[in-house]
């Protein structure tokens, strides 16, 4: 059996899959389709939907493909959401912890606390509950603390294709240096006031 209309079938598969579909999974489901043909059909589909006449697009997330609406329609689309599910937004504490895990994984709670300067194991529970992190064995040091790593859900939630898509730590270092150099940037960005002056 061959697929006379491969792009159409691919479109249906990507549309239907609940989670981002990996190209491997598609390949396995369509073993008789030539690999190069499949890849180029997928690429063609992505490009087709990227055009402005489409309001939905195919994105590569967590090593897979999925349809989603384009951000530019966000405001109008909000009105059509039946159940306005509040979007998941992590607290600053959770985001910081998430960042440490993403960049230092596998990492233990004591190591996270050392970097953040805060005792807050509870945040880990939040991230575990949201499935953004998972355990990854134990570290062979005193107390054998549990190691944590990021999950596929982490990639999906933050719209990352894979971990290599994360900007490098050096980029943040650079950023800090440029910020320190140009004071104006800092001042405009500053929104919170230290209440020291009021004392």
């Amino acid at each position, binding site marked *: 059996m061959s697929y006379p209309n491969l792009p159409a079938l691919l479109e249906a598969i990507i*549309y*239907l*899959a*609940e989670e981002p579909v990996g190209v491997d999974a598609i390949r396995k489901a369509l073993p008789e389709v030539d690999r190069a043909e499949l890849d180029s059909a997928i690429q063609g589909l992505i490009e087709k939907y990227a055009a402005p006449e489409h309001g939905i697009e195919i994105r590569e997330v967590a090593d897979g493909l*999925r*349809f*989603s*609406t*384009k*951000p530019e329609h*966000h405001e109008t*689309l909000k009105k059509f*959401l039946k159940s306005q599910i509040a*979007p*998941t*937004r*992590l607290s*600053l*504490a959770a*985001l*910081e912890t*998430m*960042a*440490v895990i*993403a*960049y230092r994984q596998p990492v233990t709670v004591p190591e996270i606390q050392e*970097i*953040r*300067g*805060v*005792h*807050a194991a509870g945040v880990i529970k939040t991230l*575990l509950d949201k499935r953004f992190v*998972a*355990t990854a064995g134990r570290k062979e040091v005193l107390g054998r603390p549990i190691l944590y790593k990021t*999950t596929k859900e982490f990639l999906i*939630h*933050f*719209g*990352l294709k894979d971990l290599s898509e994360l*900007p490098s*730590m050096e980029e*943040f*270092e650079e*950023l*800090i240096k440029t910020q*320190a150099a140009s*004071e104006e940037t*800092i001042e405009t960005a*500053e929104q*919170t006031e*230290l*209440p*020291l002056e009021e*004392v």
Partner: protein
Amino acid sequence: MVDELKISLPLYEGPLDLLLDMIRKQKIDIYDIPIAQVTQQYLDYLHLMKELNVDVASDFLVIAAQLIYIKSRMLLPPDPDAAEELEDPRIELVRRLLEYEKFKNAAQMLYQREMIENAVWSNPGAVDIDQAELEPELTVGLYDLLLAFREVVKRSEQRPPMEVDREEFSVEQMMAFLWENISAASGEVPLTRVLPEITSRRRLITAFLAILELTRLRAIYLRQDRPFGEIIARANPNYELSKSASAS
């Protein structure tokens, strides 16, 4: 005393966050922190928080202690006997602050990504193929396993303790009872006819186990003609219960 020190300050994610903000806001050169001045400001801030009845988390006190320690070390005249140059006591703190700042920026990057993701939607109600034949299942990890176990333990603790009537049948007695009844029927007999009245969960389990064991020992044969239908039992006339039952 420890109990009083639990809630972190709302504005700052921790002592490093506070310290870093003070340094950046006042455009202090982070590699040459005026430690006396910064320590004073840091302590003032903690003091203010206390006045506002905000509990100061112990993490903040740890850094306060460290600042005071660094300050005192810097006030000491250099020890003439010590090997030439001592390391700047501020170095370790600066290293931590810079490291923390990188992650703070990384957190901000994640925040922005999250905002973008929250502006798009995927898979609202895509699946319209009959999913009945597809068993709903979970992709599980270790954490799920732990949660499941916790749930099970909690449930079993909440269950009223089973009323264990010591006068109840043991599995062995139940086996003997059933064997007697089934072989007395000489031929096929519906299982429900030979079961004792099931008055408790425990008795149900006992009966269940006894039937299983009798079947395993080939003392009885069971037959069911259709799903959920009556189960028919037949005794094996060549079998003597006492032999193997006493073995266990």
